[in-house]
């Protein structure tokens, strides 16, 4: 289960968040925990360099893409390596939408499109599509494989 996908800017403002199976009262804790992780470890980190953390049986993988930080929390089959796959799918989709590692401004300009991509990649806590072409087609309401 992918428990959370969260985009934040470098100041710790949350831009997009998707929770699944996380009780409402715990979300605030997750937000602060993740943003704190990022503020401690992502400064000076390379673009798309993967960072890892864990909390009990839950894995967390996070990275920066352009000016935006991306955090993913998962459990069970979504361990750190599977989350690395998820994060890769998401970053490549975001880069595809924005055309480059996005600045915060660019990210916000493409906000709607990114939400749609995310919808195609992580759906109800499960990884769905990973290939960026497929994701692109689906966000334009085209079939995953073109006849």
């Amino acid at each position, binding site marked *: 289960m992918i*428990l959370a996908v*969260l985009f*934040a800017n470098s*100041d*710790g*403002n*949350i831009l*997009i*968040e*998707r*929770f699944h*199976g*996380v009780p*409402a*009262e*715990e*979300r*605030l*804790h*997750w937000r*602060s*925990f993740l943003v704190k992780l990022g503020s401690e470890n992502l400064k000076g980190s390379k673009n798309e360099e*993967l*960072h*890892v*953390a*864990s*909390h*009990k*049986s*839950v894995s967390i*993988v996070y990275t920066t893409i352009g000016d935006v930080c991306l955090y993913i929390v998962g459990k069970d*089959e979504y361990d750190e*390596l*599977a*989350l*690395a*796959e998820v994060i890769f799918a998401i970053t490549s989709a975001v880069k595809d939408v924005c055309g480059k590692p996005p600045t*915060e401004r660019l990210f916000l300009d493409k*906000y*709607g499109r990114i*939400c*749609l991509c995310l*919808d195609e990649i992580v*759906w*109800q*806590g*499960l*990884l*769905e599509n990973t290939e960026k072409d497929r994701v692109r087609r*689906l*966000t*334009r*309401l*085209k*079939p*995953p*494989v*073109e*006849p």
Partner: protein
Amino acid sequence: MASGQDSSGTTLMDLITSDPSATSTAGASSQQQSSSGVGGSLLGKPVAPTADRKSKKGTLTQIQNETISAAKALNPVKPVSYAQLVRSIHELAATCDQKSSQRQLVNSVFPKLAVYNSVDPSVAPSLLMLHQQCEDRNVLRYVYYYLARILSDNGSQGLSAAGGIPTPNWDALADIDAVGGVTRADVVPRIVDQLSAESSSDDVEFHARRLAALKALTSCSTSSSEMMEKLNEIVFGILEKVADTKQKRKKGIFTKQGGDKESIVRGNLQYASLSSLRRLPLDPGNQPFLHRAVQGIEFSDPVAVRHALSIISEIAAKDPYSVAMALGKSAQPGGALQDILHLHDVLARVYLAKLCHSISRARVLDQRPDIKSQYSSLLYQLLLDPSDRVCFEAINCVLGKGDNTESTEDRAGGWIRLTREILKLPEAPSVASKGVLSKSSEKSSKARRPQPLIKLVMRRLESSFRSFSRPVLHAAARVVQEMGKSRAAAFALGAYDEGASLNVESLDSDLENPMAEATRKPNLLSNGHGGMDTIAGLLASLMEVVRTTVACECVYVRAMVIKALIWMQNPHESFEELKSIIACELSDPAWPSSLLNDVLLTLHARFKATPDMAVTLLEIARIFATKVPGKIDADVLQLLWKTCLVGAGPDGKHTALEAVTIVLDLPPPQPGSMSGLTSVDMVSASDPKSAMALQRLVQAAVWFLGENANYAASEYAWESATPPGTALMMLDADKMVAAASSRNPTLASALTRLQRCAFSGSWEIRIAAVQALTTIAIRSGEPYRLQIYEFLHALALGGVQSNFSELQLSNGENQGASGTGLGSLIIPMLKVLDEMYRAQDDLARDIRQHDNSKQEWSDEELKELYETHERLLDFVSLFCFVPRAKYLPLGPTSAKLIEIYRNRHNISASGGLSDPAVATGISDLMYESKEVQKETNTVQSGIDPDLAMAWAAGLEDDVWANNAPAVDKVKDFLAGAGTDAPDVDDEEYMNSRPSVGYDDMWAKTILETYDAEEDDGRYSGGSSPESTGSVETSISSHFGGMNYPSLFSSKPSSHGATQQTIREEPPSYSTSVLQRKESFENPLAGRGGRSFGSHEDEDKSSGNPQSGKALYDFTAGGDDELNLITGEEVEIEYEVDGWYYVKKRRPGRDGKMAGLVPVLYVSS
């Protein structure tokens, strides 16, 4: 959080809408937006009274109207508020055939609306209109997105699974809004109908929309059975048409290009339908369900195959037999499952590993070794997978890791499999015949030689540890940890054979071996070189690599590596290296306390797996106690001490106690002067907070020593062979100490430590030390009791203090005018000992008299003796737990006389039940409480250390269950639980976040209540990793372990009391915290008898009336007390600090029916 709100007023919407031309608008609307959040802030909270809501709703509408007009006036083309966006949708939907409307929807309205968590149902009609009339794909894609949101919005205060700016509870608002309110109930059926119709349509041209509609439908809530039925119908309808294809699947990358239109459309539909099937609730008994899933593994779409496999593997975990039957020949060479090995989807292969694991380990398939071997062979092939994720999953499966419920046997079997089995690739017709996949066939030909699994695994892990990727390192360390777990299990079951060389011929395992076929083939590996070819050699070289990983800069990776090292630590190996690694690591301030506690819990788990390692683990735990006292959870540490001590075995007990109490030998930390320490034994308490925490820890250790020294030393007064006093009394103190230490060095050294603590150290430690000494005095035989008596006596007088204080550095505290300041505390203790000695003297005198005059003891005399015995027992029980049936306050010589009296009067010796101390559960030592439980069943049994040991070796879970809140943590950890949210260590951070995303939007009131709750949660959330750093928590938890015994309380001996309450009711943290705090502020408060307010609540709440009998006459001393006559029957209502509130059956002579009586006067 609230301050963050003030520091910056930007919201996500501001960020999105802000551009230079519209700054003013954005600023204005941001304010409005956050106030409109007041209406929206009903999220997640029970909705306030209606009147309140109405007014809020009123304000909301008003504010939004103002916003709209203001925004329109300033900048008509940039709608920013939610209401504006919705209005735009309504307007644009009406003109959706125009290109400009479509563009506006796609470019500005829909993306901005995406900021919100959900849209209100009143938007649905417009969305549905767009859905029907608009043809623009981009618009439609957003329409599906929002329709899915409306469907998934479960109506509970607008917080759906997805995120976004929290929106109001639309339904609640619609209810209030009498005019034209639209609720979800109105629109959801319409949406579902429209989407269902679309997803059932067969028009090929629109199949992309069909997929999207189906996907949107799956987001509707699973709670509605009607909806589920409909969805089921649709999904199975589609599968009916598309699943039954005999067409052979083309693999992976080729799917995209080739294929006719029809088969591609079919593939897409297969994908969509399986994706929906995956979201349907699992239905293990349902054959069509399984059948469709099994068909799915032959589909052309890799994502569809992944979903199919994940469904099958989940069902296989529950019902392996039917899955194996349904899969039939798929696992054979050339079958569909073999093809998945080469499928370009990592998770699909992960699920394949899980599936193979479930089937190859299934007991129900024992009759079908052929099936099992097919699946294990598949699993072993996955070890060669290029993806680390798949390979690691396969290793874990081979090792027998399941969902944390696997048994030790499974684990041990896993280790044996790993070390003994051979991967022999099948003749690989699937690869060879297909020819095209040159890459993989090359790979498999390279690896075609039979290979021992262990070698493959070790090589793979070693190369993973050289990776630069943190997730890979973390995962690899986790695999090593799992390996350690399996090895420990194998070790525990005696199936461990590390020196075995990898000679395949010697591998005829005594266990059932599905790969027997393969193992019998001679191995091509050279063997006999020793070194690298033994498992030990391979492990050693792996561990070398693992250790170097400690250098990783990420703490989480290092933590995992340390856990792996702890698990791979063998009881017979030197652990110096591990110790120094941990000591070095702990000096790093970057470690968050949650991680440290995780490592501590790993020590627990390691101990559970191998009780032999108790001493080793205690040594490691000691490093935690000294290095990071402020960061670790003292409860968990104490539990570790205790369980390790009990588990250390007769030989290890001394060492184990030493390992714990070494904490006491540490010099008091001196803030600021602790830089540059490397020694394990040095204290790092460089700040006042951790110095404080260390002091608490020392206090806990003192208490622990007092409670457990007798157990560790196997010295019990009731087993002591030495007759009390007499000869030894004549010796002088020095000789006595010498005699004592030669007889039992463990106890002697414990005494020495405690005596030192009673002088040095802080006030709290001295108190604890004196109490610990009393406990030991009561429980031990001579000469220890006398030694302590002398010591306490001296302490009370304060006369010898000056001699001792030179030995130890004083901490600068004023020791008190009366010498130690402990006089008031010691005197009652001395009194007990005085009474015991006096009674013993009297007894000795009486015996001598009787012997001299050759006179039998009369019944009267015996009765007197027996009463003295009982009185002393009651007295002693106030200080610490002693087994009533065995304990002889009058010394061993009295045993016979008391026995005579008991037999004559038919008094049962099993005082255990009626012992008020036991009844209220002060017994602390775990083995003792276990024994006491036994006593209730078998009449004559006391504490038998051998029995205790036998039990300790087993360490059953139910015993753990009786203990402390820490136990819950340990159990949670062992069960692999914990997906709850982490907490952030310092609140500072949360408050000082420069700007907050959604939080601005949230009403202040909500934030405030949330904060308050959070503070409570600090104590109620035992599973939150946070806050262990805070001094307060560690103080309170220390006191959880060491409440002070109260003379007048029925719960004198601390820890047990806490345990008992926990056993009786769900742990009510708040009350115990209250109690803990109280005892911290005033350690002597408990002595006041009734001052434990919190107990009152606890006990009242547990009130099942219990019947009891008055043991003695009691005269009421106040209005609220009740007169009792021996033998009178009463009903016990509840207990308050040593007093029962009882009701009589009929009014007494004074006419009173109910009142308080001392606990000791009533048998319960």
